[in-house]
């Protein structure tokens, strides 16, 4: 029963495609509450988000069961709200992760879901919609649909402008996306203005040295790099890698300390983790690798800084338990340090990291 006939649907009830809102012709057989205009969209949705939330949609889209008392009814409504809120967050994170992995096509359905649930919960003119708009804009930008991205962004900007209680974090995100939009349009003047705003708001929200602020610096650096102002770009890239290095280093030290203190008690080791969510991890990898490639291609006069980025990457991969990658980066750092004859202290530090990684890679059992 995958196929439905629009003409056979009861009058007044319109079934729309989950993705494009055209009249539906197919239905998901697993949940039977989701409809599509064709196989292409069903496949796209399944691959993006539907597989993960298929069963969760059922209670939201079927009518509420009959409750005997007001109390139970309230409870049921509350549960519904809870589910929706959970789905908002879940779809948002999934979409964000796709974006950071560069799978823009996949991100769209997930982001659309997030937007739809947000509208259901908060209404049409709420600031809560802004993050979803921003995701969609980012996805559209990634797909090269600039006009569409602009639409979403202006919608978001208008919503923010009208509301009085918009938090700094949202402001920052909005400006970052506007900056990216203008970058894509090659309007660097505007882009710089918006990215500057992004950094300002992010600093107000998280502080100037937070990893969430570093994104603004990174994009700004890219602009200056494109404008061939290499000294400015260099100092900004350095700043970004320093921020990440500091965060990862602190986290790593904390982990080691916890391990030393707890080892004897429980006899069990702490698992490595970065303390970041998946989207942030993806961002970290993307940011640091692109800084690395830029450093290697353009700023090869300062091997010190390249080694610094490599070290940060080693730490990141190590914490993400991607040991082979970590080892590769560490070897690169070491060979570079030897080649350029950096001071012994630097080389020792890398050696130390290498030992650590190989110990993890082949645990002594």
């Amino acid at each position, binding site marked *: 029963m995958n196929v439905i006939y629009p003409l056979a649907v009861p009058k007044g009830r319109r079934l729309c495609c989950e993705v494009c*809102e*055209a009249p539906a012709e197919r239905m998901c057989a697993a949940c039977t509450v989701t409809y599509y205009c064709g196989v292409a969209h069903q496949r796209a949705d399944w691959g993006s988000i539907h597989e993960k939330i298929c069963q969760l949609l059922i209670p939201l889209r079927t009518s509420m069961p009959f409750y005997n008392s007001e109390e139970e009814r309230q409870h049921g409504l509350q549960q519904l709200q809870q589910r929706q809120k959970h789905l908002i967050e879940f779809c948002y994170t999934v979409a964000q992760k796709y974006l950071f992995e560069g799978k823009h096509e996949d991100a769209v359905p997930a982001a659309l879901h997030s937007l739809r649930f947000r509208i259901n919960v908060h209404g049409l003119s709420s600031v809560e919609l802004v993050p979803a708009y921003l995701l969609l804009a980012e996805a559209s930008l990634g797909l090269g649909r600039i006009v*569409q991205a602009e639409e979403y962004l202006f919608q978001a900007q208008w919503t923010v402008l009208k509301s009085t209680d918009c938090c700094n974090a949202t402001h920052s995100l909005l400006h970052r996306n506007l900056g990216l939009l203008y970058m894509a349009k090659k309007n660097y003047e505007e882009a710089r*203005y918006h990215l500057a705003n992004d950094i300002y708001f992010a*600093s107000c929200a998280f502080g*100037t040295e937070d990893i969430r602020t570093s994104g603004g610096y990174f994009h*700004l650096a890219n602009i200056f790099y494109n404008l061939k102002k290499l000294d400015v770009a260099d*100092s*900004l890239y350095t700043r970004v890698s320093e921020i990440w290095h500091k965060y990862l280093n602190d986290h790593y030290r904390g982990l080691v300390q916890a391990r030393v203190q707890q080892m004897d008690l429980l006899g069990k080791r702490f698992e490595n983790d970065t303390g970041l969510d998946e989207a942030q991890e993806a961002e970290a990898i993307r940011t640091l690798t692109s800084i690395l490639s830029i450093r290697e291609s353009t700023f090869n006069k300062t091997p010190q800084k390249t080694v610094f980025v490599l070290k940060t990457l080693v730490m990141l991969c190590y914490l993400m338990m991607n040991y082979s990658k970590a080892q590769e980066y560490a070897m690169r750092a070491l060979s570079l340090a030897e080649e350029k004859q950096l001071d012994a202290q630097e080389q020792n530090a890398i050696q130390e990291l290498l030992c650590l990684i190989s110990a993890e890679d082949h645990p002594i059992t």
Partner: protein
Amino acid sequence: MSKMATLPPLPMTRPKLAALARQKLPCSPVTIPRSQLIKEKDDIDHYVEVNFKGLSKEEVAAYRNSYKKNICVDMLRDGYHKSFTELFTLMEQWDALREVARIRSLQWLQKPLEEQPDKLDHFYHYLTRAEDAERKGYFEDVYQNLYALACYFNNSEDKWVRNHFYERCFGIAQLIKIDGGKREAEAHGNMGLLHEEDGQLLEAAEHYEAFHQLTQGRIWKDETGRFLNLLACECLLRTYRLLSDKMLENKDYKQAIKILIKACEIAKEGSDQHMQGEASYYLGLAYLAAGEYNTALTALNTYSKISTDQDDDLNLGRAYEAIAKVLQSQGEMTEAINYLEKVVKLARNNFQSLDIVRASTMLGDIYNEKGHYNIASEYFQQAFDETVGEMNMPLMEETKVHYGIAKAHQMMLTVTNYIESADLTSLGYLLSWKETRSDIEPQPVTGEFTSSTVEDVSQNSEHVEELDFQITKKNET
């Protein structure tokens, strides 16, 4: 919709909004070439920009946002991220300080930084310049810009901002190599000042020592044309003196003397007579406090010699006074008196009434101890007369008491003589004195003691006992 009215007709059959709406969902099939859409949108923007003269984006931003935000955004736009961070942290600290002041309900007169655009402008101007220079590696310029900021905030309210920039200057100065360390020396001097104001004398001394060492043998001058080396000596001596004062308070004589000897050596190297004299003076005082009278005398003699060479009566007076103190502690009263008389003479010549008071009181004390009450009261009166001219109430009260004591001593002798002789004439004298309570001596008895009776005399005898006690104590030490 006013846009629509003013736009020239476009070669489009479809209404534009409908087209856009169709484009809106990412999965809908693309029918209009994207380039055309972009062109259309840009045309609209351009058209509006040219034909509708309104506020520019900058103007809108300036109106909507705070000045603080605009400054920050301006900095970041041009890539001055370090300046931004610095300004941002300073503003946070500023707010934190305000908050602390508010909690302690102190009167905090400073407005928040956002409301002081000229200060923000200064920050913007100098910080961006400094960052520019830093990128290019011109540390000299960086230093100058930061120093300019420090100077701008050199007032009592913004001292902490100044201190912050002094510290930054210090960091930068270490990187400047070409000027032979002049900047580094200056930065050390500034850091010394900073610590000195905070009362961290040891750190201050450390910085001043570095300052002094770096400027040794150089002919650098500061903005006002003073030699840096001299300045360093002066600061170092001042800090050493404060340090030794603290040690003397804690009865740590050995350390204090050690430091002051160091100060003397530095003053000698500085080849400034005045400073050298000053250093030996304080060294002498420290020796006196430690009870090493002979060494104290040598130090003070150096001081008096230097002062004589320089024709500096004021310092000479101080030297003699200190010497007299040492001599008095040694029990060599005649010499002490000699010196004190010199002091009085010098002070007379220079109209230093405070010095006269001090010296006269000391003289009076000495004579009092020796039992020459007549002379003692004379000196005390002298001191008292000077204080009357000075309008210094507490000092006046003090000398009054001294004077009174001396006077009482003076009279007591006569009174006891009369009582001991125990004849009628003496009794008559005593009675008549009791009647009038004045003329037992030709001089009238002034002050509180005019109204006093025999009780008073007994009180005075107590004073005498006290004095005796003091003398014995002094002799013991």
